[in-house]
């Protein structure tokens, strides 16, 4: 424990590059700035080298916390490490019920579970001879990491929620671990408009299956590929609007599937993401 505290103190001394509106990247929020969105977590720049975030609405049913720590320059990239912790049990037990919104069968009692995640993020501006804010420059972020799902009790494998976005996120508790990697590319179209392209791969490696039936294809396990394309209108430093889509494809217990999101079931149609985000600088 002492080592961990020491590590955070040392890390906090490494001043990183800060940027506004760059949650997905290795850049941290400027000190004392907060940002939040309708569907995004509340983020706060604690110092020039530490940023933390929580999903405030989810917090009461699914306690969660995330910390991003600047790691300085690494191989020409601005780097940061990110650590997440989530306790989904109260929420999962809320939806394990009879009747409407019974997402998990009431037969199952979800045990205490803790999700831990560690990621490494590296960002840089491609075409360095242009300013990061020029219309030609691209902000590239590469990331990767490991997730652990710690369960304190019996977790019935039939209690999975087999829908895109959800299955692989909760899959870590059934598989005990998962790997994630991805890249983000952000480009300023004008001073006010930005486009963000995002690609994330999550793997639930099937090591147990490989031991039974050696086959390299099973090593990868069940995968999920998520892609997002957003057009962002930066109204000011304190407010922006985002629109676009999210596409998910992956391997599920029933086979391969893909889905364009957000999707309205009863209307059987896709609708664009509409996200509002606010920010302020605390004095």
């Amino acid at each position, binding site marked *: 424990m002492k080592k961990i505290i020491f590590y955070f103190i040392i890390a906090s001394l490494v001043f990183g590059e800060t940027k506004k509106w760059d949650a997905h990247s290795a850049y941290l929020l400027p000190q004392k700035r907060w940002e939040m969105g309708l569907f995004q977590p509340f983020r706060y720049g604690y110092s020039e080298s530490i940023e933390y975030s929580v999903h405030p609405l989810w917090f009461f049913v699914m306690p969660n916390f995330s910390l991003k720590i600047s790691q300085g320059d690494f191989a020409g990239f601005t780097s940061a490490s990110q650590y997440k912790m989530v306790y989904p049990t109260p929420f999962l037990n809320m939806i*394990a*019920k*009879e*009747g*409407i*919104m*019974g*997402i*998990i*069968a*009431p*037969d*199952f009692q979800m045990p205490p579970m803790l999700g831990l995640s560690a990621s490494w993020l590296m960002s840089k501006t491609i075409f360095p001879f242009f300013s990061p804010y020029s219309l030609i420059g691209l902000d590239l972020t590469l990331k990767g990491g490991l997730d652990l799902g710690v369960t304190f009790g019996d977790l019935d494998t*039939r209690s999975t*929620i*087999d*829908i895109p976005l959800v299955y692989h996120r909760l899959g870590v508790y059934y598989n005990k671990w998962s790997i994630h990697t991805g890249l983000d590319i952000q480009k300023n179209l004008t001073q006010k408009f930005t486009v963000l392209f995002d690609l994330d791969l999550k793997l639930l490696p099937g090591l147990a299956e490989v031991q039974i039936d050696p086959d390299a294809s099973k090593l990868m396990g069940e995968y999920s590929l998520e892609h997002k394309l957003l057009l962002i209108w930066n109204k000011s430093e304190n407010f922006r609007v985002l629109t676009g*889509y999210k*596409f*998910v*494809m992956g391997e599920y*217990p*029933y*086979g391969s*599937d*893909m*889905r*364009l999101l957000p*999707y309205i*079931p*009863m209307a*059987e*149609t*896709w609708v664009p993401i509409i996200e509002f985000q606010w920010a302020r600088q605390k004095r």
Partner: protein
Amino acid sequence: MKKFLSILGVLLILGCDPFVTEFKDLSDAIMYEADSKSNATYDSGTIKVVTWNIRFGIARFPFFGDSCGDDVILDDATIEENMVAIADALNAIDADIVLLQEVDVSSKRTGYMDQVQYLLDNTNLNYGCYASMWKADFIPSDGIGRIDAGNAILSKYELTDAERIQLRLRTDQDGLTQYFYLRRNIVKAKIPALAQGAKDFYAVDIHATAFATDDTKQQHIDKYVETLAEIHSSDDYFVTGGDLNSVPPGSVTDFCLSDMCDGDDYHTDQAEEPHKEGSYFENFPGEPDILVPLYEAYDAAIDSASYNLPEHFTHAPSTSLIDDTTATMYDRKLDYLFTNGTWGSGSERTHQAAWKLSDHLPVSAVLNFGGE
């Protein structure tokens, strides 16, 4: 870049598949074949037919939806065990044509087993066709999750021209419930190997509504009668059957009290609903005699002299089974076989020994083209 955008475009379109599958009035059924086919050559004479609602292989599991149970998802090992037993039972009956209801092909509740393919691969049946009655990416209620369940026709002989005929939806539900609810159907297929001279041969399978309290059941039976009449008027043969969720004329029509779960209240002034859904057969005028047109027009495997005899009862809710000595294994007839040909005299069977394998029992008979 163009290639990338094209691929992305295709993926995005594919990503917009309906969340809940709705069907046209008439659509193609999904065709199946056994992985390895057994030799089956029709040498004229007789054709054995069986109808069976296999309750998606959960046997007498206390499922929340159709009994007093509160369980939803059965474990994979038990499903496999049940399906082995169902396949064994079908092999023992050795029918040429099998009309199945409540078959899961990709459902969370049964471990996503494709039960049509499983039965083809583990019986002496070679061909199949399937029509969904409930297909959704996710049912956000009671933990049901993903579902694809429906009717299937299995046959030793090749099936062609398989059609899914949509039955009217219930009108006694709100829009949201109806959207996520069952879309019942009739599945119909031609069996060229069984054609008799110029007369084509069809198998028709139905699962009519169980829980509607409006006139949906009447609409389903009317559509069924109409479908059969079309074949008959074309001077072709058919065998048909299924779970009609209707009792024979003259039967007891009120099972509310015997099917009642703990805490339920029916037939009293305080009761929220006067009758239990699925246990009462007088929801609209004429319901007790709803099957009369079928009995009048066609040959029934279990004829009117026998249809109310206990040895031909085919159903009791799974939780009516209290224990081996006091159980109600079957207390009503809901499953039927008809033909516009002639069933062989004495060939009809209600396979009550199979009561452990489903809450419905198989009914079989032998079609005799000789008219015996």
